[in-house]
């Protein structure tokens, strides 16, 4: 079984899930928030995005499986230099600059298999960056950044909008879908040169005439079926949605469930009808429904959900699984999820049975199976 990477509030952990004690085989960046991890299946490189708080966003890469790390360039906005020099005698002292600065790398995603070295980075505030050289340099996707609707994008939990999901079509690397909290889903058919909004998502907390506004949507996470990437699942603030046309249009899922609110979604890599979600109490409460941890799965395209609790705590559980903190392996058989309370659970047999692997980790931002050999 591949190892599991856990990006947490206090560093990057790697665990061996076969070990009954969930042995931690590596802990690096100890004490520092690691907001995203990528283990690139194309060349084995490991990337870790840090948010040092005082000292900003940093990016590190390991070319030897995590034994040694080097700091590489982090995505950054160009400095705006069109303002006149400040005048201490003016009434506007101290002078202010308005330009953006990257506050967090929210997701790191490899480009296609035909694009070695290409990495996409979704960031707060709402910038999509691409590197063509394994993170040695980065370029802002200007087309997305300069969308006329951008003044209407807004933060969902953070001060500014952020890109948390980047889906690269395995059949066509130029087809990219992103998820933005809050600006909905966006699709590019030309490698990011141009973008269009997905439609069909509904935000009940908006004024009625704005409920279906594409850029008013708060998709918490998007996931695609790798064998059928036209199938895109969305765990949205307002519910669960599914697209069968590559995120161009979404249909709301209204099947009975403990809750249709949550943050994470994992799509089965081969079966377009199957996806997993972790239900939570909405809106601002955000913990396991009835304080009982559960995972739920649809195997019929969202017509119904099965709820699995075996091996998960069924009392006094106030855990929340963040957007990137649920992952499924390449077979669609084994899952892993990590919580804000530092619990890490492994789901076997399609997520029908779970076992606790760790109980005292820091708050978990992302979990990821290492690529399989």
């Amino acid at each position, binding site marked *: 079984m591949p190892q599991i990477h856990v990006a947490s509030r206090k560093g990057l952990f790697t665990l061996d899930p076969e070990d009954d004690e969930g042995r931690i085989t590596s802990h690096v960046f100890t004490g520092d928030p690691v907001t995203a991890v990528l283990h690139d299946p194309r060349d084995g490189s490991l990337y870790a995005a840090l948010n*040092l708080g*005082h000292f900003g966003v940093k990016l590190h890469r390991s070319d030897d499986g995590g034994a040694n790390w080097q700091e590489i360039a982090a995505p950054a*906005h160009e400095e705006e230099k069109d303002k006149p020099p*400040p005048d201490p005698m003016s009434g506007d002292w*101290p002078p202010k600059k308005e330009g953006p600065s990257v506050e967090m790398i929210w997701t790191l995603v490899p480009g296609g298999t035909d694009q070695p070295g290409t990495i996409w980075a979704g960031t707060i505030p709402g910038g999509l960056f691409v590197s063509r050289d394994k993170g040695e340099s980065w370029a802002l996707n200007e087309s997305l950044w300069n969308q006329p609707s951008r003044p209407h994008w807004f933060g969902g939990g953070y001060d500014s909008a952020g890109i948390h999901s980047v889906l690269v079509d395995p059949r066509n690397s130029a087809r990219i879908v992103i998820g933005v909290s809050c600006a909905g889903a966006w699709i590019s058919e030309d490698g990011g040169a141009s973008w269009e909004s997905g439609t069909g998502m509904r935000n009940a907390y908006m004024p009625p005439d704005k409920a279906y506004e594409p850029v008013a949507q708060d998709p918490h996470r998007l996931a695609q079926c790798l064998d059928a990437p036209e199938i895109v699942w969305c765990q949205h603030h307002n519910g669960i949605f599914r697209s069968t046309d590559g995120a161009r249009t979404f249909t709301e899922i209204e099947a009975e469930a403990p809750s249709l609110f949550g943050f994470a979604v994992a799509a089965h890599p081969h079966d377009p009808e199957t996806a997993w979600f972790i239900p939570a109490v909405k809106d601002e409460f955000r913990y396991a429904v009835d304080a009982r941890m559960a995972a739920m799965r649809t195997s019929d395209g969202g017509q119904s959900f099965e709820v699995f609790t075996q091996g998960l705590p069924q009392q006094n559980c106030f855990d929340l699984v963040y957007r990137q903190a649920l992952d499924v392996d390449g077979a669609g058989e084994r899952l892993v999820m990590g919580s804000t309370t530092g619990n890490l659970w492994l789901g076997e047999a399609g997520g029908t049975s779970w076992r606790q692997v760790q109980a005292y980790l820091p708050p978990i931002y992302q979990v990821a199976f290492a690529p399989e050999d």
Partner: protein
Amino acid sequence: MARITFTGHLRRHLDCPDMDAPGATVGEVLTAVFTANPQIRSYVLDDQGRVRKHVNLFVNGAPVTDRDFLSDPVAEGDEIYVLQALSGG
């Protein structure tokens, strides 16, 4: 030349010993520092060249007033400290 000293917390991430650097403003001194050690820049300044929100710069014990354009004057022999307000959780 001004004398510039970095918080020990920054030294956990970078090799940044005390150094002397020329310049008539905080920005000019920092530019000289970053020329000698480019990696420090993104730890002290954000993408726009502003002092990071939780980093503080002092010149001879007084906090700099212009944190965006770094135009506070610096004289020969001044001492510049790069500090940060610690937080966590």
